[in-house]
Structure formats: C-alpha cells, structure tokens
C-alpha cells in the first residue's frame, strides 16, 4: 500500500497522519486568520533587517566556514574513501547487533 509504511514490527498509516495534520493545521490556521482579520497586521519598520554587513548566524559565510573547517579536511584527506568504508562497516555491524 502506498499510504502504509510497514516494517517487521511497525505499521505507520501515513494517510491517517496526513488527514490529522490537515485537520489540525486548518484549525490553527483558521484561528490565526481570524486573529489577523480582527486586528490586521502591523508591520513596524525594520530596525535591524539583514544587511550586507550583518548577515546573522545562517549567512552563507557561516555555511562556507562550516564546509571549509569541518567537511573539506575530510574530503581532501587521501584516506577519505577508506574512512567512508569504515563508517559503513560500523553502521553494518551496529545494524547486525541490533537486529
């Protein structure tokens, strides 16, 4: 079945979940819509909007920094494929011991 995810132990009825999510989100969204209709939306002018110089913690700079500091040394390492195989082996052994 497309809408049922079944493993050895566990059955997840995705259709029911989707229905429940749709019903609850429509309830909360209508509550918010009611609040917006009643009072309107106030939009104060930007006091500290994102400028070029202050880009916040999710800026592309920090993403690049993360890649350069944490990911690049691993991918540049000559033994990188070996590490990858080792990690896969570790996952495999864990899966065997758990299953």
């Amino acid at each position, binding site marked *: 079945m497309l809408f049922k995810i079944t493993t050895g132990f*566990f059955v997840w009825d995705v259709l029911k979940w989707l229905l429940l999510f749709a019903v609850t989100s429509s309830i*909360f969204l209508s509550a918010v819509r009611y609040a917006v209709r009643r009072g309107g939306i106030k939009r104060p002018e930007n006091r500290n909007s994102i400028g070029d110089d202050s880009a916040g913690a999710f800026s592309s700079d920090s993403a690049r920094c993360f890649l350069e500091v944490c990911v690049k040394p691993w991918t540049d390492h000559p033994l990188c494929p070996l590490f990858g195989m080792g990690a896969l082996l570790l996952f495999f052994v864990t899966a065997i011991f758990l299953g």
Partner: protein
Amino acid sequence: MAVNDILPALFNFFVAALLIIFVFAASHKSDRLYMLMTAFIMKKRGMPVPAAQGSGFRTMFRSQVSVPGCALTGMAVCAPALAVASLVTLCAGLPYCTFVPITDGGADIIQMAQLFLLSEAFAVAAFCSLGTKDGLDHAAAETRDVIKLLFALTAAVASLASFFVKNGADRDPFSISSFSVVGRFSTMSLYGITGAFLFAFVILSQLPGKGAAFSESLLGEDDLPDFGGAPRALLLLWSSARSFIIISVVVFVFFPYNLVDNIGEGAGFAWYGQAINFAAFWLAVLLFRIAVVPFCQLSMAFIERKVPAKLSAAVMPLLVAAAMLLLWYEEALLIEEAAVF
C-alpha cells in the same frame, strides 16, 4: 472503513482530542506555575525579578498581529500554526496521550523524533522568515539546542534498545512501550541503572528554551519585539508543549506502572487502577517539569562552570558517552551471565 467502525473511530478521535487539549493546557499552565514560583522565590531572596511573559496566552493571542517590515508575512504568520499542528500529530501517536493511538499501532520513538524535527523545522522557518538578524540568530540558537537534545535522545534510545534486544525483547525495540525500564531494574546491575538515570539527567538538562533561571519560554519579553500577536502566542505554546512532551517521554520510561497497577488491583476495580495510573503519571510529569528539570539544568550549568572553559562544551557529550558505556557494560555482563548459564 465499515459503518460499524466509524463510531468507535470517532470516539477514539474525540478522546484523543480531549487528552491532547489537556496536554497542551497542562504544559502552558505548568510553565506559568513554574514562572510564578520562581518569581516568588526570587522576590523572597531580594533578587531582581526578570520581566516575565506578562500577558498570558489568551491576551497575547488577542493582541494585534505584528511582524517586522522585511518579513515574509505569510510564512511568519502560518509557520507557528503548522509547528503546533505537527506537535499534535506527534501526540496522536503516543499511548498516554490518546489511550488508543490513532495514527499507528506502535508509537515508534524514531517516528516521534521525525515528527519532532518536522515541527522544529516549521518553528525555525518562522524565525528565519522574520528577515531580521535577531530572527536568524534565534533560529540558529534553536537549531543548535535541538541538535544537542536529539543527540542525547538518540544515543539514549539506541543504547536502551540495544540493551532490550540483548535482554530478550521479542517486539519492536524502538516502540515506546518497550522502553519502560522500571520493571527491568530488578534484573539490571548498578551500572545499567546509573547509565539509564545519567541519560535521563542529560536529556532533561538539554531541553531547549531560555533555561532554568526563570522560565522555559522560547522567547523572553524583550526578544523579537516586532513579532507579536497570535503567531507569537502559538510559538510560545508550541515551545512549552514540546518541552512537556519530551519530559513525559522520560517520565514514561521511568514510571513504576507495576506499582500503580497493584494499587488498582487491590481495590478490585480495573478502572480504579487506570484512573490512578493516569493521575499519577501526569502529576509525575508536572513534578518533573517544576522541580526535576530545573534541578537538572542548574546542575548541568554548575558542572559546566566548574570544568575549565575549554571543556565546558564537551561536558554533555562526555556524559552521554559515559552513560552509553555503562549500558554497554551492562550488556556485556548480561551476555557473560547467559554464557555461564
């Protein structure tokens, strides 16, 4: 679905809706109670009382909706509602929130973590869509806190599941009903029990929020002043409900069901035992929220202050590693015992 099944299904939905409303209301009220208690204690000690979320949920919900001028209005207004809705679907899978789980038969803890992440994604999207530097910083802090919590939670679940499999569990090791460890404490040595309690300590100390100093709220009174009204109220409700649900999962793992069931059997009525179970469980969650979580958070802050500054970030991973090693050692003891037998 046959016609005969519709009425029971509707009844299940009705009971689940009542219980989920109860969980959300209890989470909000317990947060308020904790804030009042802390304010009272701080006042008694002559300490300055920080500005609380002065207005309650209802007042905040009724105030005018406001978002910063540069915000993506639709996303900033709708995403908190979707975050709360995802949390409701998470509750619908938990046995103690619905009596009869209405979305699946097993309440899988991995699925719970996925739904938890979905609701987090909506909350982070709400912060990001504000378009201000403060909003992005809040989103980054929230993401960091959640990753820390999920790290501890995943390590705890994997270690306990592995131990249960070795201990002869013949059902889904990741199902939440497999995680009730109290009945297994009698077969565990001190190492395993310490490991389980250490995991509970780390998870409770890593609950996202402003910390134990005053409130568990996601946002202080002074944070994001341009973001107000119904979306902010929903986001605060989501934050307290999320912490409450994580606490309830930890309490579920350690709750002595056998003891309470025996009290009910003594009275001779099945419903009597169930009613006591229900009341005792939710009172325990409330007690954890008010007393145990602040204790864990303050203890963790104390430990982090006492170790050298360079190592303070490593305290949580080291405690998680210690708890995992204790449970693995317990597993090794179990295997050795089985081999001797």
